[in-house]
């Protein structure tokens, strides 16, 4: 209950572990600060409660020597914050900026209130006759990077794969690219994370992660002529 890390859903993407690492580090740092600051607060409240015959000290805290009692913890906070940011920078770059090379690209278009999932087919190009569109389901192989092209038709939607620690808004008029690589076969929920109208609640799809052989089989079923 109290360890927040246990509440995250199982991670099944290659970069999810890195994100969890950042969250875990933040968790340890913030828990430590929580107990330090609230502990100090509680201690002061007990130690300095009103008692007969004892007067409050006259401390203005304006001279640097006094202010240092506050400034030093502030500096520690800044150093920790910067450290967390530096720790996070490569993870952010890995997830959102860099993309490993792959030959599998899928276009997902959000619309009220469905995910249109477009596969380019065997020729690997969108806009050709062998494109194939599915609704609310994605199929990908395990252990292979998948590029996703995010689009939206009407309003803003947000593509959220909790198990993959992947979230990306889809903005009408923009083409946004992203990627993920699954590490474990299974069926994973894909909710829309941005309010998109009355059907927002319940707008979700499924991501099926297949073992390589099973994925080949699925491809053969979809494109029997190829």
């Amino acid at each position: 209950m109290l360890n927040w890390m246990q509440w995250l859903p199982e991670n099944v993407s290659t970069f999810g572990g890195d994100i969890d690492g950042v969250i875990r580090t933040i968790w340890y740092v913030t828990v430590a600060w929580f107990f330090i600051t609230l502990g100090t607060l509680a201690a002061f409240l007990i130690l300095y409660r009103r008692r007969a015959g004892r007067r409050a000290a006259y401390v203005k805290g304006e001279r640097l020597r006094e202010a240092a009692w506050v400034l030093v913890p502030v500096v520690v906070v800044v150093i920790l914050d910067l450290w967390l940011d530096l720790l996070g920078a490569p993870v952010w770059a890995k997830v959102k900026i860099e993309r490993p090379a792959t030959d599998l690209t899928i276009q997902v278009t959000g619309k009220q209130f469905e995910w249109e999932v477009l596969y380019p087919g065997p020729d690997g190009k969108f806009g050709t006759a062998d494109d194939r569109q599915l609704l609310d389901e994605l199929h990908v192989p395990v252990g292979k990077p998948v590029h996703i092209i995010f689009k939206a038709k009407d309003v803003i939607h947000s593509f959220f794969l909790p198990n993959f620690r992947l979230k990306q808004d889809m903005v009408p008029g923009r083409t946004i690219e992203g990627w993920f690589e699954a590490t474990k076969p299974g069926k994973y929920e894909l909710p829309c994370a941005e309010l998109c109208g009355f059907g927002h609640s319940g707008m979700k799809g499924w991501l099926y992660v297949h073992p390589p052989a099973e994925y080949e089989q699925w491809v053969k079923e979809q494109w029997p002529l190829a």
Partner: protein
Amino acid sequence: MNQARAGTITAEAVEHHAARGFWRTYVFSTDHKMIAKQYLTLGLAWTFVGGLLAAVMRWQLAWPDTAVPGWGEIGPEVYNMLVTMHGTIMVFFVAMPILLGAFGNFLIPLMIGARDMAFPRLNMLSVWTFALASLVLFVSFFVPGGAASAGWTGYPPLSARPAYTGVNWGLNLWILAQALEFAAFLMGGVNYLTTAIILRAPGMTFLRVPMVVWQQITAAALFLLSVGPLIAGAVMLLLDRTIGTSFYAPEVGGDPLLWQHLFWFFGHPEVYVVLLPALGAVLEVLPVFSRKPLFGYRWIVGATIVAGGLSFIVWAHHMFISGMDPRLAMPFSITTILISVPFAYIVFAMIATLWRGSIRFATPMLFALGFLAMFIMGGLTGIFNGSAPSDIYVSRTYFVVAHFHYTLFSAVFFGGFAGFYFWFPKMFGRMLSEPLGKLHFWLTLVFFNVTFFPLHHIGLAGMVRRIANPLQYEALVPYQWINVVSTVGTFCMVATQLVFALNVVWSLVAGRRAPTNPWEANTLEWAGPLAAAALELGPCAPDGLLRSVRVQPAGGPRRLPPAEPGPGASPIGGARYVDLCGSARDPRYAGGESRGVVVPRVGDHDVRRPYRELHCLPPRQ
């Protein structure tokens, strides 16, 4: 000036006050204190509506698609409306009128030694514009299609075309109500700034004004500087909706992200517009009940201004995954870290203020401490959101909901109640019941945490915001009990507010009459006797301007000689008046330009900052 003269003025003031009649006194008043009460009344009325919406929303989340008692079943359309209007009401129609409108109007003139706001009629126009905004927003519930349902952030294209939400006039009126609300608080903000800049009593320098005034005027400045882009954005949105322009329509070259930039450029400063006045109230309460000066007054003033400045360059941390260029995330992560510096300073300074104090746990202090503890919690969870990679996961989930309720709800609720309990005797001349106040505090603290703490967990488990039915998601079904816990907490918290309502009503009718300075505070608003509004500043005040001076004798504070007993009760309970030359006398009865330093003596504790100087000037013509 002599006692008789002072008495005459007082009597005239009373007569004048009575002569204004009911309408000019209670409705179309230009008196800042009455305007403050009008803002307070409107804000509390909206709290009731906003709370009701929240309770209905929570019912739906705990027991989806069952009939809400007294309301009926709610579908997803209504749910989206509840989400939208709850957010809009709580931020713009509860937090701002209570924290800025009521506290700002009431306190700024009293605390800086001014008789009223710089522009009293503009002030009246401000509150009536806000009343009009309230009316428009209220009417929007009853137009065909219902009230706005595109989220309180109103992201287009969802908000830009009626077909996407099915709400037509509801959303137009929502924009109109916001525009009127902005106009009201622009008038208020201009007034606050002008008053604080030009109407400070002689000697009340900027580094002597009480902290809450600093927080209020910083908030007013932030609002003035940030709201322009949003107003431009809102005009474009209204044009998109009504005459078919395409500022946000991508099909013809518009850009939906434009709105998000404009909204959050305003939105982040707006968070501080709400936070700072509450913070200010708490910063006033903590020293009084610790019997110590604020730890590092000047540093906190500096920190507040720095935080205000930085708040203009952090907005894109609301947009990490919005589809903007991902390379922007790191710069905004860094600025977000920088803004934690001034707030860390202020929080630690609040804790340091308690150090070696003599802490009295009266109700205002309890709420102030509640704010401090809960705000620390909210600040820490903010780091999860501020770190870009971690935000990929936690954004758009209930973790964010938990985070901003720990920050904003703690500001509005705990900070607001700290101020309300603290200044209630000043506003209404009666004391609130302490036992009921303490009961109110402890129940609120417990149920606040029952309501919002578990939301961190369900957010981490992957529950996204603004969904009407969590049971539609397989991953969330095992965690549904958390929604039930949170909902029960909400109902208990709402019920707890009956204790508060009872306390207020009972105290207004039969509460103990408040002494002049019930909390033994040393800011200027407590210098005058209480009760009737026109008698505000007491026998001296109609023609005397009070001001504070900070006199630090060489070699640190020293005991000042006891005052000679003067005629009549002194304005500050138990205070001694000593003039700058050291010869003791009561300056209320001194003529013309004489000055005196007030050193409140409080029981066995001295509060020596800021020293108060009475500066009696000839009456204003």
